[in-house]
């Protein structure tokens, strides 16, 4: 295993030494080597990863200098409400029926002018809701008489008001859900979606990963995250980096001093426009859809940073 790794990295090095020289940070990062580092998800993995190889520069103390990279987890938040589970539906229905059975009498006189059209319409609606909650109307003598009195009035009201205006509901399932279009931002409306891109890694192989890049000289991590995101995904979208704090760090290989800091971002408008060269494809995916696409060690490093729902 170790020998394979070494071979892989030597190949990787031949390809990308020149490309990487711009990404390197010559600053010495003290905090990373301190023993009290307690950031969220440090994953230690030991196989090929879609990230640039570590540098061979040595610092004065003889250890390898750490290299910092930033990656962005660009998220689209839910755009429609969640569908309640069957249990929730039953629970809510049960408590709504209790509430309907026990609530104080509705003050019709306060809200409606007695005998007005609106009142008749509201009473008719209320009778419908009552039937829906508790089944058919009770055939006691008093309610039957009341119903007989009210029914023609209500029917007349509806006639006068010209009936209900047609209310059409938009389907909860978007067209992209049916045809499996993973690039559409309207897909899976009730879930959190994350942007995954099909980009070159250091060995020139295309793998699914989050937008990622290196730091420039004297650049702050959250600024680098914003710049790298636009460099890989185009500038035709409005994004917002949620916090200056990284939400996690991933160390692709325990032997090498490479650390990828993940930032959370939200997309407000626009869409990803890959350049077609370095990045060829992209997809908006839920957490469960990401797992089969990415490599196993990468998945273990990132899975705790993603929204479960």
């Amino acid at each position: 295993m170790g020998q394979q790794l070494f071979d892989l990295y030597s190949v990787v090095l031949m390809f990308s030494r020149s490309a990487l020289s711009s990404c390197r940070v010559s600053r010495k990062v003290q905090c990373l080597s301190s023993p009290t580092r307690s950031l969220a998800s440090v994953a230690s993995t030991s196989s090929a990863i879609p990230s640039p190889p570590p540098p061979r520069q040595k610092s004065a103390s003889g250890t390898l200098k750490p290299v910092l990279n930033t990656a962005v987890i660009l998220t689209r938040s839910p755009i429609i409400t969640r569908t309640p589970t069957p249990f929730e539906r039953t629970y809510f229905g049960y408590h709504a029926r209790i509430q309907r059975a026990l609530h104080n009498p509705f003050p019709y006189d306060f809200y409606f002018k007695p005998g007005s059209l609106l009142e008749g319409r509201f009473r008719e609606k209320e009778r419908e809701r009552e039937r829906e909650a508790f089944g058919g109307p009770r055939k006691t003598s008093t309610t039957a008489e009341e119903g007989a009195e009210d029914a023609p009035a209500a029917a007349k009201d509806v006639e006068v008001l010209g009936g209900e205006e047609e209310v059409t509901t938009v389907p909860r399932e978007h067209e992209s859900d049916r045809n499996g279009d993973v690039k559409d931002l309207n897909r899976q409306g009730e879930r959190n979606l994350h942007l995954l891109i099909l980009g070159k890694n250091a060995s020139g192989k295309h793998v699914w990963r989050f937008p990622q890049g290196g730091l420039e000289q004297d650049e702050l991590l959250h600024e680098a995250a914003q710049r790298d995101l636009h460099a890989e995904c185009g500038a035709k979208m409005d994004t917002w980096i949620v916090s200056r704090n990284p939400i996690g760090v991933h160390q692709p290989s325990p032997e090498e001093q490479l650390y990828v800091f993940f930032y959370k971002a939200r997309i407000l408008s626009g869409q990803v426009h890959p350049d077609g060269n370095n990045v060829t494809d992209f997809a908006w995916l839920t957490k469960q859809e990401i797992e089969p696409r990415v490599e196993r060690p990468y998945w273990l490093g990132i899975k705790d940073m993603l929204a479960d729902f």
Partner: protein
Amino acid sequence: MSAAAATATRAVAQTTRGRIKLIKKPLRRDRYGLPIPHVDIIVRDTHLSRLQDHYHNTLRDDLMYMTYKHEPASRKPQKQAKLRFDPEDPYTKHRFNPPKGGNTWFKQLPPPTTSENVVQLERIQLHTMLESAVASRANLLTAIMAFRTLSGESREAGGRHTAEGVQIVTARTLGGKGWARRGQPIGVKVDLKGPKMYDFLGTLVDFVLPKLRDYNGLPMEGPSRPLDSPSAATGVVSFGLPPYALQFFPQIEVNPDMYPEHFGMHIHFITNATGVGAQNKARALISGFQVPFSRA
């Protein structure tokens, strides 16, 4: 086990456990003659709350990342408050002995950020004071009815003993100009919690705030304001609505004529944030529900 024994067991089970026990004794009646059920009936959530879901699915993570403060080393112990008099002195031993320099609860640091203590909305309080109630307490009826309509809360509603409903506020101190006596009812307040709180917040953001004239947002002080003042260290965000805003609530809009007097109100968003800078955390939370803020 023989077949006979099995049959016998089944028969016993049917007589003891298998049968539903019918209620033969009539239910007790309360003083109004209504039957008292033999279980406590409590109305809990009746629907999925849109903004509550928004908080748990979207806002909560973001707020944790935004308010996170990295503290790798453990904190230094806080300086003990010095008492005004020597507590060991027999003369002052059991006397009132406040800390020197007054109470400094608002100088306390916030607790370390964890995933458990992310800032969260606890309740929304609506409050109004009617000057006309001094002349006649019947003038409070308008405000009581409006608050009941806005909140949907009533005392012990749905069998919940903690539901306080709309409460009368009495004058606490002698008015400076002498226009209100101590204990005189002059206002009305109501606390909203749970799904009703989120429903009210949604109504406020979707219907009321967009209709206000020349409204830039909730006023906010400048950045130079200290974070350890009493107001900045409470996780409460407060603002006021003018009297004409009352008619923009859809519940009031259907019959505004039934409320002879329109009044303004204070709205307090009360969160669980504590310590220095708590109010800014509360603002971050409230702005996540699309409540606008503006620098005064």
